[in-house]
């Protein structure tokens, strides 16, 4: 039995009439990246806030390295660090000032606070911007200073709440690299995200959350296998043939086929059993069947399972509908 960084049972948080977190059980092994995947409003941030001692649970319990997040909040605070979804540094202050401030609050003496801040700014490529106010930073730089502020004292457990939402692809890759380096040094990372892709790249285990409940949990491989290997998107030459195409695809693939908003497009699920080759095979069988039925295909594409598809498969409703919840 490996050590658990986080263990929760029946964790509940209620806001008014909404059960934002509704009985969450988690067991997060130490020393790896744990992904919490879900759409906006699924309860990811609320769950993280409870684990980071920012919110008091309304029910159930949670421990961080064996310490209760309510009764031993101070001990938990000395083990964890949180990079929130919204800038958790002071925009009016410069990069250096922000880092030195947090370092001092963590108990570093002045010279140590300055040294550690300077070293982190350098490692994060922010030395040139060190004396500029954070409000003048680009999105990627701001994320980096945010993460730097979280590791001024190397935490045992680091919460990253949607660290790449709103970042361009390059900045997103930089954040991914940083996360890998941090984990390699022995820190456990809990990462929330809306992107299956991101959880897939970084996390060794993933919990999928919807409506405050864990609806699936496992390794990325297990999760994708349960969803299917992906999907095939087909564009027809003639919209009149779509009914026929739908019928052919469902009988060949035995899976859900749905028409898209575009009258000539449709998407079919592939049940690839966790094997890309099988997915490709299915796709070619599907295309052959369409050709045999006389349906003219203009083009097609194979898609990796997206969060939307994970949600469709797990909950029978697309993730995006829940954005307001």
């Amino acid at each position, binding site marked *: 039995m490996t050590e658990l960084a986080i263990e929760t049972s029946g964790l509940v948080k209620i806001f008014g009439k909404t059960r934002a977190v509704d009985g969450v059980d988690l067991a997060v092994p130490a020393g790896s990246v744990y992904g919490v995947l879900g759409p906006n409003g699924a309860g990811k941030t609320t769950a993280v*806030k409870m684990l*980071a*001692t*920012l919110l*008091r649970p309304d029910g159930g319990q949670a421990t961080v390295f064996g310490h209760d997040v309510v009764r031993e909040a*101070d001990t938990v*605070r*000395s083990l*964890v*660090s*949180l990079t*929130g*979804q*919204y*800038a*958790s*540094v*002071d*925009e*009016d*202050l*410069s990069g250096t*000032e922000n880092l030195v*401030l*947090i370092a*001092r*609050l*963590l*108990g*570093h*003496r002045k010279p*140590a606070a300055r040294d*550690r801040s300077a*070293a*982190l700014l*350098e*490692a*994060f*490529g922010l030395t*040139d911007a060190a004396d500029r*106010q954070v409000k003048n930073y680009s999105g*990627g730089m701001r994320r*980096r200073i945010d993460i730097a*502020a*979280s*590791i001024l*004292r*190397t935490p045992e457990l680091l919460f990253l709440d949607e660290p790449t939402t709103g970042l361009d692809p*390059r900045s997103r890759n*930089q954040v991914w*690299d*940083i996360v890998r*380096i*941090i984990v*390699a*040094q022995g*820190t456990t990372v809990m990462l929330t995200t809306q992107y299956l892709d991101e959880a897939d790249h970084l996390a060794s285990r993933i919990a999928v959350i919807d409506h405050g409940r864990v609806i699936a949990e496992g390794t990325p491989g297990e999760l994708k296998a349960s969803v299917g290997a992906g999907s095939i998107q087909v564009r027809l030459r003639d919209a009149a043939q779509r009914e026929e195409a739908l019928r052919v695809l469902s009988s060949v693939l035995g899976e859900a086929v749905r028409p898209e908003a575009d009258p000539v497009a449709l998407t079919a699920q592939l049940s690839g059993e966790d094997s890309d080759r099988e997915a490709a095979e299915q796709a070619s069988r599907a295309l052959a069947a369409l050709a045999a039925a006389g349906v003219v295909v203009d083009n097609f594409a194979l898609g990796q399972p997206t969060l939307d598809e994970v949600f469709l498969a797990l909950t029978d409703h697309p993730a995006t509908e829940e954005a307001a919840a």
Partner: protein
Amino acid sequence: MSTATTTEPTTTASTAYAPAADRLGAVLASREQPPRPSAWSASLTFGWRTMLKIKHVPEQMFDVTAFPIMMVLMFTYLFGGALAGSVTEYLQFLLPGIMVTSVIMITMYTGMGVNIDIEKGVFDRFRTLPVWRPAALVGALFGDVFRYVTAAVVILVVGLILGFRPDGGVLGVLLGIVLLVGFSFAFSWIWTMFGLLLRSEKSVMGVSMMVLFPLTFLSNVFVEPETMPAWLRVFTEVNPITHLVAAVRGLMAGSPDGGEIVWVLVAAGVIIAVFGTLTMRLYNRK
């Protein structure tokens, strides 16, 4: 073409950043756990944060410089002739009161500051730090104390220019300011509470105005309460601002009133006990 080739390397060098694995790793490898800072040192660090914000956004000092000057000039010349016959004479009575009014009114920015700060998410980080919990707010108030002192000094200087000649001398004036700033520190906890309680800075400002206007005007700042109807006098008698003004006036005039000073100190203690507790309860729950 030649310009493009010369500028390109510099732009890519500044935008393309690759995390330095070895350097970052080296920093993280030091898993040193520094000792938890004392309550006092954490509060001072938060106070330093407020001072840094003043350094970066000096416009925020406008309300502790321009506003008090305006207050002194307005009320001295508006009421001076009518109430005391002469401006200089009225100033001896008015200045300590106007100083109290201005500084007490400035305290409401504390609540707005807390409200804006909390909206921004920085406080989420502060609240996950293992430091003495009230430090963030106490530190913010330390910064505000600097603003209160600035406002008091500005008013004093304007007053001296206009002809304010306190009999209490340097010591009396100094003690008066210390008492005023001390009480304002305590009074600010009311606003930190509202700053945490209310949803927007506008509502904080609205509530502040509703409390501050009656408190400052229905007092002995501008006129002696003897001229007021009985029911109003009852209010001015229990109004802490009345006692604060009386105490500060006494100190500056060289005739300190022990009873009033004790009243003010006790009131300050009660305010901190009540509103400090409420503030911290809200802060922990937020």
